[in-house]
């Protein structure tokens, strides 16, 4: 089975530790709404999740990819996350510094 026939799940942890006044739950909600809009442009991403982790000031984002080579996933995920954060910034007027702490890519 080629990469194109496989499904992959990428889980990314975004850290907002450098934003002391951040409300993680609220941002996670905004990120989910923004992600829903951005994902309309990406047919290869068929499922997602957004899981806030308040204690660590982190948000875990999951993206499921289908019909795309594994080597392009990271690039596409970065693009999707950047677009989503940009949408939040333009709609709320506040810019949040997100650090990509870690990620895991596995076949689904």
């Amino acid at each position, binding site marked *: 089975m080629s990469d194109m026939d496989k499904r992959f799940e990428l889980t990314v*942890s975004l*850290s907002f530790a450098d934003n002391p006044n951040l409300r993680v739950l609220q941002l996670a909600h905004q990120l989910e709404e923004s992600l*829903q809009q951005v*994902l*309309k442009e990406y047919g290869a*991403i*068929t*499922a*997602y*999740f957004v*899981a806030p982790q308040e204690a*660590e000031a982190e948000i875990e984002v*999951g993206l*499921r990819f289908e019909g795309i080579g*594994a*080597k392009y*996933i*990271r690039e596409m995920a970065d693009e999707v996350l950047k677009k989503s954060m940009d949408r939040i910034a333009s709609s709320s007027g506040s810019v949040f510094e997100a650090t*990509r*702490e*870690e*990620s*895991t*890519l*596995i*076949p*689904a």
Partner: protein
Amino acid sequence: MRVAESLVWLWRACKGWASQTAATLATVVALIWGGFGATQWTEGIWVFWTAVILGFLSLVFQIALQRPTYMDLSRREEKAGQESADKSEAIERSLTVLIRYLADHCSLAANSDRVSVYYHHDKQFVMLARWSQNPNFNSPGRGTYPVGQGAIGDAWDASSAVAELPGSRARWNQSLEKNHGFPQGTAATITMHSQSIAAQRIAINGAAAGVIVFESTIKQRASQDTLDALDDSKLYAALCELVATVAMLTPRVQEAAREDAQSEPRPNLWREV
């Protein structure tokens, strides 16, 4: 043919048991002789001599028939153990050579990198071989690893895993313990601060046998490209065969203790787009 075989086995049984049988009979006869009381040196004298003769025969059988002797067998056992250990080490060395070439092939053979092979045995992973150009990363580490821990567990469950981990050591330790199943305090003891990991399950004819793990202290160095290069290599096919067939002969698997550890299922958070 069957008669000849039976005779051989009868002879082996006699040879194996003659000495003990004669000694036991000598003891029994000596006890009977004791029962004669005051007449033991008159009426019972023949019983006394029977016991002495049986005792003597036991000694003769022991010396004449018990070949090889107990001392010989002990020496042979020691030699066989040593030969077995030498062969096990030779197998481990061959695996190390193989993974060194694989690291080269996958462009992950720099001072920052390491490759390890693990065998799945009794609900845990046993490290079969490890290679790194950096001597600090070459140590065997914990030797055995519970299922469901780190990238090894992820790759075992999902067939492959590519992970990136935090750059700060404090966050790295926290992440390993919080997200990757490491027990409290374990992460801080790990020498290599791997920031990128690519791991793949080793399987032969559909049966999973172990996991190969590429790690690097540099972000994005071990990646999906590493696993793609691995899949294309004939050396990897040879490694899979070797792991599946000879792993049980390697020293670490032989020493592995039993441990019950299961990977914990994660809650389903996914939403369809």
